[in-house]
């Protein structure tokens, strides 16, 4: 057989290396719908435990919302389970075009193209619109999917220090001779929860004749007064050339993503983007679900307002309790613990206390910046947040980190 003992040992030792380095990922089995409270089997075989979930991207609490589930059911009945095709052969239904128009209207752009995921959107967009005469200038902390997409493109690459506008300007001057300059950023940075300075970036792009691409995956549906995203918050609606985003987080949480922006660029993606050309169309129930989400969010800001109120309360309460937080004003609230092992132990103890949160450490975040990333949802009621806060304080006291400075925590836990 081809899969010899020698080959098995090669892969076995790779997996062991991950385990030895403490970066081997283990799944927790959830036996309920995604919500503020979930039932978790962990470790495998353990009895089910009801926990408060503070690590989902379920920002608007729509993942199992009855209205969305109903809309998906109706989509399933009316347009079927799947299309067994890519878009351009026989995979485009009326509802796919309706969704594209609704996304365009919601984001305030010229046109939109759906992708199977935002990872696919980011993998396909650069190669479709840029050539080796162009340059891509990305923030150094952009999401991994943007990095992979940039790698697939023949244009020159460059980067600027995170959110450093002076450095970005230097790069725009350095690459003045390029045919097209594309600046690339996340709208909201998923690990730190900070937002890009899109107003300043738009001004720089206008000054130096560059285009701007923003990944809005952690923003669409709830950032900005009516939830349109970081461009709304920064007052630059209509001025972003390309927005990529996902339907797998705030906008329903199922799957799918898109590129939305200037109509010529969207059309080029339709003609040339490989993940669009060679991957299945989004399933009809998902399309129907996202349509209902956008309809609801276009009518009322109730859910994003509740999310904002929840996130503000959570951030303020953790600070008052003496935790060190990464500064920001989004529903992503990172509780800084600095040491990798402490972040893991802290998460384990939280789980015992009925709170499901994940510790992140190097290489996901820089060395010495380990944290518990909490993500607040509109599905959380005040009693969820109060219970979760009590658990954080109890575990914080156990490790004696409340009210301590970064240096004091590092001295105790040796980060």
């Amino acid at each position: 057989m081809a899969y010899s003992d020698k080959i098995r040992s090669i892969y076995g030792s790779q997996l062991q290396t991950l385990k030895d380095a403490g970066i081997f990922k283990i799944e927790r089995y959830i036996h309920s719908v995604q919500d503020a409270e979930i039932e978790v089997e962990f470790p495998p075989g353990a009895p089910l435990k009801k926990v408060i979930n503070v690590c989902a991207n379920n920002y608007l609490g729509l993942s199992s919302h009855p209205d969305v589930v109903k809309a998906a059911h109706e989509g399933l009945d009316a347009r079927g389970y799947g299309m067994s095709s890519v878009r351009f052969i026989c995979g485009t239904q009326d509802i796919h075009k309706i969704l594209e128009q609704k996304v365009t209207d919601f984001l305030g752009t010229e046109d939109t193209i759906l992708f199977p995921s935002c990872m696919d959107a980011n993998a396909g967009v650069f190669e479709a619109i840029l050539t080796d005469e162009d340059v891509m200038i990305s923030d150094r902390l952009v999401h991994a999917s943007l990095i992979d997409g940039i790698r697939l493109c023949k244009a020159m690459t460059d980067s600027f220090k995170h959110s450093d506008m002076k450095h970005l300007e230097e790069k725009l001057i350095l690459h003045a001779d390029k045919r097209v300059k594309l600046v690339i950023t996340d709208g909201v940075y998923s690990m730190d929860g900070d937002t890009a300075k899109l107003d300043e970036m738009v001004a720089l792009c206008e000054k130096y004749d560059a285009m701007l691409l923003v990944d809005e995956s952690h923003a669409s549906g709830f950032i900005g007064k009516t939830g349109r995203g970081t461009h709304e918050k920064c007052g630059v609606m209509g001025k972003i050339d390309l927005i990529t985003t996902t339907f797998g987080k705030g906008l329903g949480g199922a799957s799918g993503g898109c590129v939305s922006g200037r109509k010529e660029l969207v059309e080029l993606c339709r003609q040339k983007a490989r993940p669009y050309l060679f991957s299945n169309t989004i399933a009809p129930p998902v399309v129907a679900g996202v349509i209902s989400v956008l309809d609801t969010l276009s009518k009322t800001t109730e859910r994003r307002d509740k999310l904002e109120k929840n996130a503000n309360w959570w951030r303020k309460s953790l600070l008052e309790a003496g935790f060190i937080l990464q500064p920001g004003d989004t529903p992503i609230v990172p509780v800084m613990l600095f040491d990798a092992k402490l972040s893991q132990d802290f998460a384990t103890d939280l789980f015992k206390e009925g709170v499901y949160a994940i510790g992140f450490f190097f290489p996901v975040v820089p060395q010495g910046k380990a944290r518990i990333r909490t993500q607040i949802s509109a599905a959380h009621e005040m009693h969820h947040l109060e219970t979760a806060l009590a658990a954080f304080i109890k575990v914080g006291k156990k490790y004696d980190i409340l009210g301590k400075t970064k240096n004091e925590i590092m001295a105790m836990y040796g980060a």
Partner: protein
Amino acid sequence: MEEIREVVLEYVKNEYMEDQDEELTYDTALISGGFVDSFSMVSLKRFLETRYKISLPDNRATPEAFDTVNKITALVQEFLG
């Protein structure tokens, strides 16, 4: 030679170090050590070409050749003739 080394060291510090107190020597592994992301190597190449009025072919401007200040200096020196 000495001057080129200092210029390159200063550039790398300003361009890539988030924390100015971080230790950086002539032999610090810049790319393999994770200080310089491969996306922004191009800035370094463009800087050297402009500053020293040389042209570095792509097949010589490799991550290996750019991995330390000393290696970069040697490369520039070679093209300066």
